[in-house]
Every structure is written in C-alpha cells, then in structure tokens.
C-alpha cells in the first residue's frame, strides 16, 4: 500500500528517465466463457475481516477487497496459481505508446442486471476514483494515471504521466481496478452499499444476493460472468463475519461453517492441524513483518548526541546478527509465519536471501559472537540500550509474544538491553512519523503481488516509513527496475537492490506470513486459490 507522495515523486523522476520499449501483454482469450453448466451446492465461509464500504472508490482494505474480488470485474488479473498478469475482462491490453496503455474489451459484455458493460463503464470507474479521491479510498494508487479515454465501446486508453510504467498493469488488478456500473454508481460520491446490492451492479464470478453488512453476505454464481477464471464451482456461497477468532475456530471445528479464512490464531491453526474433521491448507503469503530503524533517533543516529553513522550501522548489523527467526516462527507462530531473509518475500520473482548471507551464522541462525565483534570493532561500549516499539493488535494478537522473543534474543547476548513498549495503533501511526520511535515494528500486506510493492514504498527518499534512509544508488535502481520490461534484467536489478539495502539495513525483515485456510474435509479447491495473488476467490471452492 503505497505512499501517494512517494509515488508521485517516482512518477516525476521516472518521467525524466530513459524511455524503454513498450510492453505488450500477451493477448490471450479469456478462459471459461462458454460453459454454462449449472453449479450446485452451498458453502459457508467464515472470516474475521471486516467490510468497510462496498463501493471500490471508498475502501482500501483487504476485507473489502475480498468482496470486490468476487463480484466486480477487473480488466486484468492473474489466474489461479500464477502471478502473471493476464487480460481478465479485457480481450487485450498493451502499451500503444510509452504513455498510452490501451485495453480492448470483448463485445456484448453485460452486468448482472442486464446493463451493457462497455468502455464507458471503465472510463467512468477511473474518472470517479480520481474525482472522489475518498480519504479511505485507493485513488492514491492511481498516481500515474493522467486521464482515461474511451474512443469506442470496446476500447479504453489510459494516458499515463510517466512512461513505460511496469507497475500500472499490476495496479489494474488491485484495489482501484474494480470496474463499476456507470448506470448505478454516482459519479462524484460514494454509492451506498444497499443501492449497489439492490441494483445488482455486479459482473464478477458471483453476485451478491443478500447483504447484511459485516454479518452475513450471501453470494450466488453469476451465469453471465465472462473472465479469466472458470465458472464458479459452487452455486451459493455464504460469508459469515466474525469478530473473535476463537469463535471462528470453534465454528469451523464443529462443522458449523465450511471454510475459515483470515485470520485464525497460530495456536488455533496448530490445534486444527491435529483435528481429523478439518484440513488446514497453506499457501504462499505476501504479508511480512519487519523492524524499522529511524536513522535520526536510533542509537548513534543523526540527531542523537553521539551521532556516528558507522556506529549506528554496527548496531543495526549486530541486531540483524542476533534475531532468532526460527524461535519466532516456531514458538510464537507455530509455523504460520516463516523466517524471511530479504525485503521481498520468497515466492515473488526476484526475491533472494540477502540477509541470510550477510548476517548471522550464514545459515539463518543468530551469531552472538559475530555481533559482539561488530560492536567492538566499531568501538561501542555494551550493552547498548534499545527502545523497541510495537503495535498492540494491529498485526495480530501475537505481536507481544513475537517481541518478547526478539527482546530475549537481543538481551541473551549481553550486548543489548531492550525496553519494549506497545502502543495502540492510531497513536503509533502518529508517533512513528514524528521521530518519536527509534526502532519499531511494522507489517506490510501488498497492494499487488510484485517485488516493486516491497521496494518503492520503503526505500526511496521520503518513503512512507519516514525513517530518513536515503541511498542514491538504491533510489536509481528502484526507479530503473520499474521501467525495465525484460523480466530477467528486472529481476537482476531487484536482486541488486535487496543486496544493497541489506548492507545498509534500513529495515530488518524477519517474518513472512503464509495464507492459511481451514476447511471441512469435503471442501475442495482451496489450494487453487491460495496463491501469490493473495486474493481468495470463492469460485474455486466446491464441496464434495
């Protein structure tokens, strides 16, 4: 989830940069389409996520995205178990000039309510995103979009500010990419949930049949769906919204619901793994946890009394040497989070294990002697006092245990004394950007599954972390990868960025979350949709 200001900056920088040959997305025909065999059955899904606002212009959170994914059409998308962006609703999508991205739609598309789905809907969607620019909306992701043009019913041309933006197609698959019906939605304000449901303004694999806000949403398969995914396997999907993970756990365990997805506690999942009535399905996760250093206020930071960049770096390196990722993964998360040794989570193109090679004993284990050596070489008297901040609740209930482990692994070396402090989220958000915290926890859930989303928001100057990290080399590399169309060349750049940032240690990434769904033993298809798109698509599920 990218900072608007950072993005804008990148757009300007990139516009001045080299122009690269236009990228063409393979125009393959959308799959499925024809078959209309009636799917049957009912599946009930439980989740602790919450909906905010059904209108895609007014929400920017995963709970609501989970609904959008089922019911709104997207121009581009990824297939099950793939991270390759393909035309979804579109017939083809390509750069027709460095700043023009042209999408063609097939003819005869319809909304579930019978309205025509044409290029005017697409233009309307993006125009209103930019116009409404709701504080809770995702319009900031459209930082590179200048205007949208619909020359005819099946053609849409996106005029971009920066040239050859490799990220723009990815953004069309994410939050602001949900296309809405121009005959139902208001052009200049958020349309209420009930109006959308009543007008049946849907064209995804499912339509919403009944909608009890944040309590129970009932979906029905959309027979007119024409897109990338095969037709829905189950006719009716009911989604029950929970607030307590423990209730969700009990209900799936007792068979009251078929699927529990996002988010059960690690203890619950471990317990359910040993339960024969349910199966636990794991998928790759894009969620990461990392420790941020404020380069101004950390020990020996730029604005402290004893400012010394070399010493500050030694402190960061020593911490990187000491963090016991296995202990966090096993003790606290019971394997639902796995050790992360780089800025980009394993599974995404370009990810490496930069921190494993550079820190610790070289195999991912902590190495207190190495840490002690670093501090000694830098001339630092130990123990160094650290104040580490973390957020209560925001990143799951296990944060306090996670940080107790980190405190232990730092203190047991005798090199650090750690004061832990947890702060409620809103206050935390204010304090961390006001330079009040020297070392603090953050987490990240990607907007779109691409390495860029783990680099641009973090390591450009004036990034959203506001930790005063700046490395011109890294900056240039990040800008370059964003406009490099050749995948291999881009991956090489991305690898280089990770190595360089790992040497600087702006942040220390340490955990990567897996996607875990718990289902009844008769539910199939969960493995298909727990993929690198991080979208849980109900169309894949069926009950035997």
């Amino acid at each position, binding site marked *: 989830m990218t900072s608007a200001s950072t993005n804008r900056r990148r757009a300007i920088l990139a516009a001045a940069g080299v122009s690269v040959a236009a990228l063409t997305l393979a125009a393959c025909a959308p799959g499925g389409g024809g078959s209309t065999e009636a799917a049957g059955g009912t599946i009930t899904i439980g989740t602790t996520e919450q909906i905010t606002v059904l209108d895609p212009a007014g929400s920017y959170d995963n709970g609501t995205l989970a609904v959008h994914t089922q019911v709104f059409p997207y121009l581009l998308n990824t297939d099950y178990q793939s991270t390759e962006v393909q035309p979804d609703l579109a017939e083809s999508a390509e750069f027709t000039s460095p700043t023009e991205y042209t999408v063609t739609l097939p003819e005869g598309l319809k909304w579930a309510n019978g309205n025509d789905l044409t290029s005017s809907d697409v233009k309307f969607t993006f125009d209103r995103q930019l116009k409404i620019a709701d504080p809770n909306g995702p319009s900031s992701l459209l930082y590179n979009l200048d205007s949208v043009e619909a020359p005819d019913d099946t053609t849409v041309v996106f005029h971009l500010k920066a040239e050859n933006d490799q990220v723009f197609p990815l953004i069309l698959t994410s939050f602001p990419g949900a296309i809405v019906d121009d005959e139902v939605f208001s052009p200049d304000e958020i349309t209420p949930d009930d109006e959308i449901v009543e007008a049946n303004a849907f064209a995804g694999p499912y339509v919403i049949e009944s909608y009890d806000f944040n309590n129970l949403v009932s979906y029905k398969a959309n027979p007119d769906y024409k897109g990338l995914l095969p037709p829905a396997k189950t006719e009716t999907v009911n989604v029950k919204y929970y607030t*307590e*993970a*423990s209730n969700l*756990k*009990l209900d799936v*365990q007792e068979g009251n619901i078929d699927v529990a997805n996002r988010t*059960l*506690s*690690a*203890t*619950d999942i*471990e*317990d359910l793994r040993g339960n024969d009535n349910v199966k636990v399905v794991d998928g790759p996760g894009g969620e990461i946890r990392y420790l941020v250093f404020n380069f101004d206020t950390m020990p020996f930071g730029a604005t402290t009394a004893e400012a010394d960049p070399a010493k500050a770096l030694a402190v960061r390196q020593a911490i990187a040497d000491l963090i016991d990722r296995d*202990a966090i993964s096993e*003790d*606290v998360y019971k394997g639902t989070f796995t050790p992360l040794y780089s800025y980009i989570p394993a599974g995404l193109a370009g990810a490496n294990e930069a921190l494993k090679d550079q820190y610790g004993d070289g195999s991912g284990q902590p190495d207190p002697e190495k840490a002690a050596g670093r501090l000694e070489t830098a001339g630092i008297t130990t123990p160094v006092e650290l104040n580490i901040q973390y957020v*209560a*609740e925001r990143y799951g*209930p*296990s944060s*306090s*245990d996670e*940080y*107790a*482990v980190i*405190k*232990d692994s730092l203190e*047991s070396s005798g090199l650090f004394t750690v004061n*832990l*402090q*947890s*702060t*409620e*989220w*809103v*206050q*935390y958000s204010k304090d961390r950007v006001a330079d009040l915290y020297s070392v603090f926890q953050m987490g990240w859930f990607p907007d779109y599954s691409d390495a860029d989303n783990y680099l641009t928001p973090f390591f450009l100057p004036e990034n959203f972390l506001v930790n005063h990290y700046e490395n011109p080399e890294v900056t240039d590399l990040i800008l370059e990868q964003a406009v490099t169309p050749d995948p291999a060349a881009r991956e090489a750049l991305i690898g280089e960025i990770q190595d360089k940032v790992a040497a600087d240690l702006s942040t220390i990434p340490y955990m990567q979350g897996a996607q875990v769904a718990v289902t009844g033993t008769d539910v199939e298809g969960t493995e298909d949709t727990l993929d690198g798109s991080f979208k849980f698509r109900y169309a894949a599920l069926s009950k035997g």
Partner: protein
Amino acid sequence: MTAAPVTAVPKRRLRDRIPVVHQLRQSVGLQRGMLVTGLVMLAIFILTAIFAALIAPYGFAQRADASGSFGSQQPPSPEHLFGTTVGSYDVLSRVVWGTQTAILVVVVAVILSLFIGVALGLYSGYFGGWLDRILVVICDAIYAFPSLLLAIVLSIVISGGQSSLWGGVLAAAGSIVVVFIPQYFRVIRAETVRIKAEPFVESAKVLGASNSRIVFKHVFRNATRTLPLIITLNSAEAILTLAALGFLGFGIEPTAAAEWGYDLFKAQSDVTSGIWWTALFPGLAIVFTVLGIMLVGESLNDLADPRLRGRRRVAQAAGEVAATSVVPGGALSAGPGGLSGLEDGETFDEHGIEVKR
C-alpha cells in the same frame, strides 16, 4: 440517616472506631463467617502482592532460566505449576505478579476518586450555588452512562495508547476515577447537605467558626462515615474494570507488568484449543480477589443496616450506627440525586446512599 442522640453514647474506644475491626467485633454467626472469609481472602491478596518477589518462582516477563527456554504452552508440571503461556511465560508467576498491578490500580483509583469526589462533594453540598448544580448535572450524566465505554475512551486518552506499566495503570485507574467520582460526590454531597442543616453546624456558625473549619472539622468527619463501604465496592469495581480493559486489548504490555485481564485476553485462543491453564488461573485470580473484597463489602453493608444486622446485636448497635445501606453492585434507591439537588437540595432516599456498581 439518623444520627445518634447526643448523650446516648459515650466516646468509644479506639478499637471500636477503626472501620472493619469494629464491624468484625460487632458481627455474629454467618455474618462474621462471611466477613472473616472475605478478610482472609483480602489478606491473601495483599500479602501475595507484597511478597510477590518471594512467592513467584520466576519473573513476570521471564521466558527462560538457566536450564533453557520454558517452552510455549507447556502444561502444568513441577517446574511450572500452572504451565506456561504461548509467549513462554510462567502462568503462576504472572498470576502472582498480577496482584501487584491490581493493587496498584485499586490504590491509585480509590485514592484519586476519593480525594476529588469528596472535595467536590463537600464543596457542592456545603456551598451550593450554580457550581453545585452544574456539578450535579455533570455527575448524573456520567453516572448514567455505561462506565466501561467511558473507561475505554479515557484509557486511550490518558495513556496515549501506550501500554507501559504506569501508562496502563494510570489509564485503568484514571478511567475508573472518572466513573467513580460521581459516586463519592453524590454520597458526600447528600451527607453534607444533611449535616449542614444539623443544629450543631448552625451553632458552630453562630460561634463564629470559619467555613473551612466547619467543613473540615464537622461536616467532613461526619459525611465520610459511609466511605469504607464504597471503597470496598469501588476496589472490586476497579479490578473488574482493569480486567475488562485488558480483555478488550487496552491492557498493559506483558513485559512491563503482569495483568490478569490481558493474560485472559491472550488466552482466548488457547482455551478453544484445549489449553485450559493459561485462562483458568488468571480468571480465578480475578474471581478470588473480587469475591474477597465483595464479601467484606457485603458484610459491612449488612452491619451498617440495622434491618440486616444479626438479630441479637441490633438493639445494642442501633443507637450508634446510622441506617446506611449500600447494596454492592447495585443501587438501592430511586433515581439520580441530581433532581433532588436541583429541586430542594434536601431529599435523598431513605437509606442515605446510592451506589451504583
């Protein structure tokens, strides 16, 4: 609220004038049983808090000892009598250390609300005027509102969302204070209004005593006699509020202090996975402590109310004790005091005190 006839009672011995000790002597039979049980439980609670360092086998934030990490969610064993939590803390140690946090909150909450509530009550009751009326209305408004919700908002405001020991303690205590002040205020105000009209205050005025002397020497000493009761009730309330805040996620960071409500909150997912020890013991600690305090409170209440006192001693005590009745956990009387304050500043219910939980 009948004050005793002047000449009937000689000045009593000290041991009769210390609250609780006096009631203990006064009680009989079952009532004495309840009072003694409550006092014993309370004593265990307080002693545990004082000697936590000696009783607890480990520190509240300790996750490993010389023989290695405790391991997470270990069932009760000789090394860890109550087992360990998901964060590898020793449950017994956290339960024991939790008494300190609880007592801290109780002391801070009760002292603060006592001082502010009594001061405002005395002022309001004695001097009256527009300030009195405003205070009455404000207190009634707060009083009528679900206290836990107020406590949540206040805990965010007070601690700035931070969960250090003092941040947490002050947040819990502070939010309890705001909820309790109206209770002390109403009781003291009503008593003050009543006492102000007593002839002895009139005569003191005639004799030229200053207002402050009258307030502190005469009114204060008489108006505060119902306080021990309210204090016990509020102490119980304070512990429950702290636990509720902890349970709702507004608790204290586990390495800063041990707090039962927070531990219960963390233990929720354990319980559903068959790990009973992480929730049971902190839960029982809350119940035990509150039960102890409430037993004392209930007994004090009975003993203060001649109708409820043991039958045999009624006659003996009737002359010296006001007919005060405080129902733990619930008010015994009608409506907020605000109206009476605005109406004529005099009426109050027949039992003198209203205490909401």
